[in-house]
């Protein structure tokens, strides 16, 4: 197997609160192979955004990465100094965000921002940079690109703005693109276009992608492998086809159950009872046990480790093998 392009080992990320430290990620490990699309899935508050930010060492203060390492292209990013880190950001590893309308600076034209993304890492003449910005906009399929370059972000639709963000992210040909909920703020039809665009760009450039989302539909369409996150922990990892057919964690099964389907799937559409635990009060043992239909006394006491439950399928559940999907009505 090829060396992964990025490997995060046992990341622990915490935020201070009222004298304690709250752990947004406790021991998250993930790896991404070259040219692979990996999805990081979880509900709001499960720590997926903070984890993705930590890969670029951008955890917002007062949060901090307590331990762990991020190995990217043979270097531990968390050990780099500010300048070295800056040289990685945008150039080797780029990121796009959930809200395209707020991710663009309102006071500059689209063109000047794309040009800036180029000039941040390469010394080319402003004229060449402008030409490249034009090419980039064409590559992300923005019509009338030359004119768009001269416009301000507020003159573009959300989908167009996200395309601009993608163009900026691709400006320096990164090998890894992190997309944090790239389509959440967009209309469904636009979502499909953006996903298609990302997919095409990935094929053309051979870069790897990490898609952070809570939408399993997006995962099914784009990703090859999936990590499911819950309360700052990876609770399941496997291939996407595997997860859609045999989830081995009750939480994943619950997530799947909550996805509406047009195919008349057996079992009702039903939400997972309860809510994501507050970081200040993560339940003992398995953090999911209060919401879990399989929970037993052991779940309250012992936190299950992420273990290999089947070939190429890891799950952090004491009863991984008993997870059934679709969840039948008799279980509650």
């Amino acid at each position: 197997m090829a060396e992964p392009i990025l490997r995060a080992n046992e990341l622990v990320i915490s935020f201070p609160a009222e004298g304690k430290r709250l752990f947004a990620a406790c021991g998250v490990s993930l790896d991404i192979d070259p040219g692979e699309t990996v999805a990081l899935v979880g509900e709001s508050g499960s720590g997926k955004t903070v984890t993705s930010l930590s890969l670029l060492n951008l955890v917002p203060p007062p949060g901090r990465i307590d331990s762990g390492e991020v190995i990217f292209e043979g270097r531990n990013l968390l050990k780099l100094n500010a300048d070295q880190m800056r040289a990685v950001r945008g150039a080797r590893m780029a990121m796009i965000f959930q809200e395209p309308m707020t991710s663009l600076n309102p006071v500059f034209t689209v063109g000047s921002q794309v040009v800036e993304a180029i000039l941040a890492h390469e010394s080319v003449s402003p004229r060449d940079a402008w030409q490249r910005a034009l090419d980039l906009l064409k590559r992300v399929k923005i019509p009338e690109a030359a004119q768009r370059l001269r416009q301000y972000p507020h003159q573009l639709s959300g989908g167009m703005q996200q395309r601009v963000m993608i163009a900026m992210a691709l400006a320096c040909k990164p090998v890894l693109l992190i997309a944090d909920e790239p389509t959440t703020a967009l209309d469904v039809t636009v979502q499909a276009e953006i996903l298609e665009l990302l997919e095409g760009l990935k094929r053309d450039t051979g870069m790897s992608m990490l898609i952070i989302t809570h939408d399993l539909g997006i995962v099914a369409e784009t990703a090859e492998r999936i990590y499911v996150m819950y309360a700052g922990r990876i609770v399941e990892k496997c291939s996407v086809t595997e997860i859609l057919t045999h989830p081995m964690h009750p939480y994943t099964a619950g997530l799947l159950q909550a996805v509406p389907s047009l195919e008349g799937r057996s079992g009702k559409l039903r939400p997972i009872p309860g809510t994501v635990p507050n970081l200040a009060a993560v339940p003992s043992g398995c953090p999911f046990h209060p919401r879990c239909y399989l929970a037993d006394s052991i779940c309250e006491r012992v936190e299950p480790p992420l273990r290999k439950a089947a070939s190429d399928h890891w799950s952090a559940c004491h009863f991984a093998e008993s997870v059934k999907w679709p969840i039948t009505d008799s279980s509650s």
Partner: protein
Amino acid sequence: MTATGATAKPVSPTRRALGRLRRNRAAFASAVVLVIFYLGAALAPFFAPYYYDDAAELSYCPPMRLHFVDETRRFRLRPFVYRCRYYFNQNAERVFYEDTSTAYPLKLMVRHGDSRWDYRFLGIFKTDLHLFGVKAPGRIYLLGADWMGRDLFSRILYGSRISLTVGLVGVAITFVLGMLVGGIAGYAGGRTDSLLMRLCEMLMLAPGFYLMLALRSALPAELPSTQVYLLIVLILSFIGWAGFARVVRGMVLSIREKEYVLSARAAGATRWRIITRHILPNTLSYAIVSVTVSIPGYILGETGLSFIGLGIQEPQASWGNLLAEAMNVSEIRFHPWVLWSGVFIFLVIMAFNFLGDGLRDAFDPKSLER
């Protein structure tokens, strides 16, 4: 709203704000007044009939009237002034009267032919051309003369060069300093922030004018006029930047949380670049307004210092030390025209305030545009 179509002409936010500004009559009129004043200051030696230090024996000559009809009741197209003479009355006061036997027609584009009063036009070439004047030995005093018989109009024009630029230069320094300190404090946060802000607060604690006096008196009193000018500017901006920096810092605090800042960081932009390219430009609309509104403070600061004799020194003219002549009530009673510089100060301050208000409304995103 502008159209969002690709064919729509991009209108920058600044452009639109300026359009709004133009529709504000008071602000527009103020802008016109200020342009006139600053033009007057730039071309002062040309507009002024005399050099600021060109004294004559007509001490406190009152403002002269321009005549069009001469003593024979004949209308003359070219306005003229009569020669000004005086006698002493029984109280030993000078009484001025117009000597109608000698008339000096007003001439445009005159030269005095006296190399003492040569000046450099816009600092480029040497000339002694003046917009208007009368033939020597006649003198023209449109706004009267001061105690040395110097033309008040000329002195006000020359004085405006100091009084009007003090505001701009001072504000420019304040602007750069305030943006820098506010930007760094707001973006860096933590200890840097506390340190810089406490420094600002210490400066703001001291009452401005006293701090100004203290600073001025701590420095040598006898200095060449250019150095005094610089000193005043520095003192004024030294006092002024703190408040501005604090507000900029506050805005930076909110702007740095914006997603485009995070995305700039994720794109590998340097800290310096993030502050100068992403954060500070977003404070600009506020900053410009704030700075415009604070210009009058600088003008008044200089005027105040010069008024009490700590600023620009005679024979140099500034609006402040011109007004200092009006410190004495009897002066005002006998020669009220020494108050003219006060009128100009008033006009400029009003104009800047109206313009500042107009700018604030124009740049306020909440102001509705129909």
